[in-house]
């Protein structure tokens, strides 16, 4: 798959990014230690090249020993990992290994599935998001989500963006400005600026998906979860979304599930590899985290044999 050349891949750009990191972030706590502990990593995969990353991510979301059940069925077992601030974290692995399940548990979207249950601990800035006093709506305001299939509302392009700010009661001085800003943020403005009042269903699949991203960033979350956001798109639309993610990384923390290893290699700072293991007694295939590391490491020098097999296409 080819990636469209992007302005953000020029060698000077990353310095630019780190220096502008603090002012553009609403919660500045994360930027400082990142610079302090910055360490050059040789990442030889496409766009990820030349990026400084701390050895240990600055945690935004942290999973500790997480198990996720659907009724009696344990879909995921023993996941512990830290999603870093302003990083793109990819979760890869064969289908059915629980990537979506883990992703949905991060903003409590799995509450919507009857019988879904999480044990262990998932924290957002140290707060247990499954704590008894936590409102899942508040969680989702801070941790937004983009779905596998574009799911714009059957409303106008404008109303799709304005919906989130309106229903969450965001104080907005000018909705028009916010809509424009969000559409620009999702690299969609130029394509739709003349038809904001038209139905979002008139857009192409790739445009719809960027609209969904625009809609998500309109409510200013800190984290954006993406579940195979490109799986229904053609390569060109995919490349545009990948470019977009690179831009969004400056302002948001992105966690992406992808079926596509090249995509993870291209966009992600860190990659978590999951696989499913059949339980001895029941034969239930339970997902587990095999390895989590810098993307460069995962793809060039994985520590686990199973990762290597998967990366090299020997299974999955």
């Amino acid at each position, binding site marked *: 798959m080819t990636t469209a050349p992007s302005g953000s891949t020029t060698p000077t750009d990353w310095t630019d990014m780190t220096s502008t990191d603090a002012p553009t972030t609403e919660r500045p706590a994360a930027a400082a230690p990142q610079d302090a502990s910055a360490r050059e990593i040789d990442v030889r995969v496409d766009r990820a090249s030349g990026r400084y990353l701390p050895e240990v991510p600055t945690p935004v979301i942290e999973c500790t020993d997480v198990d996720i059940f659907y009724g009696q069925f344990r879909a995921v077992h023993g996941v512990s990992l830290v999603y870093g601030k302003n990083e793109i974290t990819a979760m890869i692995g064969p289908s059915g290994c629980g990537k979506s399940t883990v992703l949905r548990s991060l*903003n409590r*979207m799995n509450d*919507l599935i009857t019988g879904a249950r999480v044990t262990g601990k998932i924290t957002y800035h140290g707060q247990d998001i499954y704590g008894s006093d936590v409102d899942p709506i508040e969680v*989702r305001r801070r941790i937004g989500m983009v779905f596998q299939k574009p*799911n714009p*509302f*059957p409303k106008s392009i404008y109303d799709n963006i304005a919906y989130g700010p309106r*229903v*969450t009661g965001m104080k907005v001085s000018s909705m028009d400005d916010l809509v424009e800003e969000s559409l620009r943020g999702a690299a969609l403005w130029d394509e739709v600026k003349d038809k904001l009042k038209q139905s979002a269903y008139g857009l192409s699949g790739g445009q719809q998906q960027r609209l969904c991203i625009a809609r998500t960033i309109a409510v200013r979350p800190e984290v954006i979860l993406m579940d195979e956001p490109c799986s229904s798109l053609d390569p060109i639309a995919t490349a545009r979304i990948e470019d977009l993610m690179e831009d969004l990384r400056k302002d948001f923390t992105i966690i992406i599930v992808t079926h596509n290893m090249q995509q993870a290699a291209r966009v992600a700072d860190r990659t978590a590899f999951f696989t499913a293991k059949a339980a001895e007694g029941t034969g239930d295939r339970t997902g587990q985290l095999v390895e989590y590391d810098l993307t460069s490491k995962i793809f060039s020098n994985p520590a686990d044999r199973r990762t290597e097999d998967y990366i090299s296409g020997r299974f999955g």
Partner: protein
Amino acid sequence: MSSITAAGGPPAAGAPQGGRRGQSFDPSSLARHSPRYGERAVMVVLQGAAMLSVLVTIGIVVSLLLPALSFFREVSVGEFLFGTRWTPRFPGQESYGVVPLITGTAWTTAIALLIAVPFGLGAAIYLAEYAAPRVRKVLKPVLEVLAGVPSVVYGFFALTFVAPFVLEDLLGIEVGTFSVLSAGLVLGIMIIPTVASLSEDAMSAVPSSLRQGSLALGANKMRTTLRVVFPAAVSGIAASIVLALSRAVGETMIVALAAGTQARVVTGATQPGQTMTGFIAQTATGESTPGTLSYNTLFAVGLLLFVLTFVINMISIRLVRRFREAY
């Protein structure tokens, strides 16, 4: 029809292609192997069914129209539509102003909708969006059974329970045995299941991906329901209300039993009154000789009922087209 004749085209083009491949049997031939008589027969039967229902409808309209036309030869349309005295069976002082019957129908229908729309939609929202699947599995069939209770049962209920106990004793509203209020209330109860069940279908049919999209933005459930699910389901919801409305306008037993038989202009909910259907039921069961004016009156009222229902349907289809958010 057209698909079958159109399919006849390709074989000529397919044959030479098969020859080019040079195989003994012809896997690439697009020619039809069998004439498919079965398919054709099924189509004819289905076509017949469709035609039959159209013909029956036309037949009904015609049989309604002819006696109604003879009625209007004796009574002018203006007198019929705008006259406020309805005394077709008072020898010597017959008057054919249908306004009293229209007010009777309007009152009972309006009261019925006032009851059925909020309760029906509330029930639908609860079932589609809030109820646990197990609860829904039990309640939905109950609702559908309720929709099938014979209306004479409801009429009896209005007469013997709602009017004397609920309205007079419990709520302290002075109504007689007959009132458009008690008829309308019970009519409303009767059509709640229609509104609830069909609206629930419409809301459940909205893809859950839309709900998830809304919830993932931090919208709560009520806002998601009202601002995403509801607009997306509005055509089905409107259809349920229109159907319920048509049932209320056309319902006979309840109003015949509970509203009364005095055809007079109704100006308050506690008054008795006669509806269009109530009049038809009362008159049709009495003796009227075909061809007489009193007989033709039935058809004039029937035609009016038909036209009203038709107009209501047309208007609501227009409205729905304008407001729906098709997914």
